[in-house]
């Protein structure tokens, strides 16, 4: 987890520096704000990971000598298949249409989106195909 955190901290460090130079040199607001945002985007999770990497159990994926047996155990739960991403995507597309034509599609879109959210929650609660 260390290298992972360094990657993000590199982003934080770089944009901290560049943001500062840019602000002092140009006094231009928009760019400085975006660079500040990028600094935060790198440093906030970066420091969190660094902090966490010191506390966590070492992971086999960080150990150059790990064998597959070291990783034995549950990797994770993955859905076999699910219709809800499709429904949610369709809903979002209909909602988007409403912002162009200002029409009935908003209702359809919201209905589909809410249905998908409910469906996905139930699906991961009790499982069940499609």
């Amino acid at each position, binding site marked *: 987890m260390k290298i*992972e955190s360094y990657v993000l901290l590199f982003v934080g460090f770089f944009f901290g520096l560049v943001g500062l130079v840019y602000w002092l040199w140009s006094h231009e607001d928009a*760019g400085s704000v975006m*660079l500040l945002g*990028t600094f935060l985007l790198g440093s906030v999770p970066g420091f969190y990971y660094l902090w966490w990497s010191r506390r966590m159990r070492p992971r086999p994926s960080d150990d150059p000598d790990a064998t597959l047996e070291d990783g034995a155990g*549950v990797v994770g739960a993955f859905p076999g298949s699910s219709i809800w*991403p499709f429904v949610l995507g369709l809903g979002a597309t209909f909602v988007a249409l409403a912002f162009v034509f200002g029409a009935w599609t908003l209702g359809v879109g919201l209905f589909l989106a809410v249905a998908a959210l409910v469906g996905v929650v139930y699906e991961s609660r009790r499982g069940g195909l499609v």
Partner: protein
Amino acid sequence: MTLLADRPAVVEEGSDHEHGAGPSGFLKWVTSTDHKVIGKNYTVTAVIFFLLAGAMAMLIRAQLANPDSTLLSQHTYNEMFTMHGSLMIYLFVGPVAFGGLANYIVPLQIGAPDMAFPRLNALSYWLYLGGGSLMMLGFLTTGSAADFGWVAYAPLSNSINTPGAGPDLWIVALILTGFSAIFTGVNLVTTIYYLRAPGMTMFRMPIFTWNMLVTGILILIAFPVFTSALVLLWCDRHLGAHIFEVSGGGVPVLWQDLFWFFGHPEVYILALPFFGIVTDVIAVFSRKPIFGYRGMVFATMSIAALSTSVWAHHMFTTGVVLLPFFSLMSYLIAVPTGIKFFNWIGTMWRGSVKFDTPMLFAIGFLVTFLLGGVSGILLASPPVDFATHDTYFVVAHFHSVVMSLVMAAFAGFFFWYPKMTGRMLREGLGKATFWLMLVGANVTFLPQYLLGLKGMPRRIAEYAASDGFTTLNRISSAGSVLLFLSVAIFLVNVVVSWWKPIPAGDNPWDASSLEWATSSPPPHHNFLKIPPIRSQRPVWDYNHPEDRIIEHAKARPGGFVASGGVGTVLLADVNVDGEDTLETRDPDR
């Protein structure tokens, strides 16, 4: 060159039959959360957008082949270049890389069973398809499709100058695809951070995966800015927000700042995945490890970082940006890019270079990208940019770049097509595709450098015979015909591979990363067995024990050095209540 003797017979059609009850056909397309299915969907969809955008490019070139051309009306021409650019950038090069190839390959390269968030991954695809369809829907509206250029500069993009549903569709479409890209970015980063197989440390990941990690982070930096800027633009158009309007106290140039803060990183979001493909392809076909691996990783990260601090080099001629800062930062990108170039050459150096189609495309990439890079350095100089901005010199510059990326994409297609389908593409047709594309790209775009220097502005629907632009434009249009043929031959190649399949086997290229350890196409959840990971080239180490480089290996039982044994992953892949719980087990227990 098989990796494992005891692998199951290659599955002919579809990969998840051993999964039992999974849906097939249309239902599979709609419901699958398997990263391989989604990756294929993305790839095919993106290629369709590529063909559409390519057809528009042919119309553009047909129009410009003659002076005073009236083939297309001015209005249609404006629609064409806007949609050509938009489709190519937003719906083809990016999605085919991070949604298509990366989605398919990254989990395989790190030994993961799927992406970290499979449902989110599926949602990304549907948002992308929805967005893409809405953008194309613009052609069916009574007004027109968007016609303000792919950059939609304010205030040309406001409701007075470009009214109508077409532009609005363009905006909401890109909001949808923006979310799609952000979700994919999150998914890539999480997958690479959390789902690597034991022993797959960060510095053992293939460069393609490294580049996708950096691309993922870059997506998270860039896309939110663009997506919010589009929301602001919508508010300007419909709620009279006057954010980009002088009349209400707004600042038009703010749009350019927001757009390019996204737009330039976007260029590298497009490029980095292809740099990764080329890196890996060159190493495989030179039969050598990557030269300067760590330098390569560092270069990728530096390019990504620098690319986010150069946005205003697209705004040099606005007269309101800090020229030296952006010029210097732009120049600096040449350093890590140079490192990459020399590492690519170093990888081939004293290697054993074999010219299969993927390698040819990778070399085509090197040759063509260099031209785009050199002209890019010129454009990073504000005085030179003053002379060439918004001319065909710029069009030529970025097409040198994007055509090299297209070649790298084809390198990826030819390289991984056997893995994705279990079938080979034909070498002869592949080589024809390559040569036509290399020659075609340069015949099309080299004359455009000269046209730009002669003063031909971009985005003009016509020019006068007396301008002296005719000959070069004709050459350019002739070149585009070669490009058309090249792509057509590629499609023939795909059809032939379905009609008369040549089985690929697991590892047709004698390649080195993990995706070549599993069957072609891989089974549901990817691996039945994984070789020990003791270097950047686990499969190579297994196949070429005398030629491996193991930098760090304590001899541990079950480890590579001790036994050369093969671990087994993923025995329990049971579908309990619609969710698959995956376990890794020790084969000997």
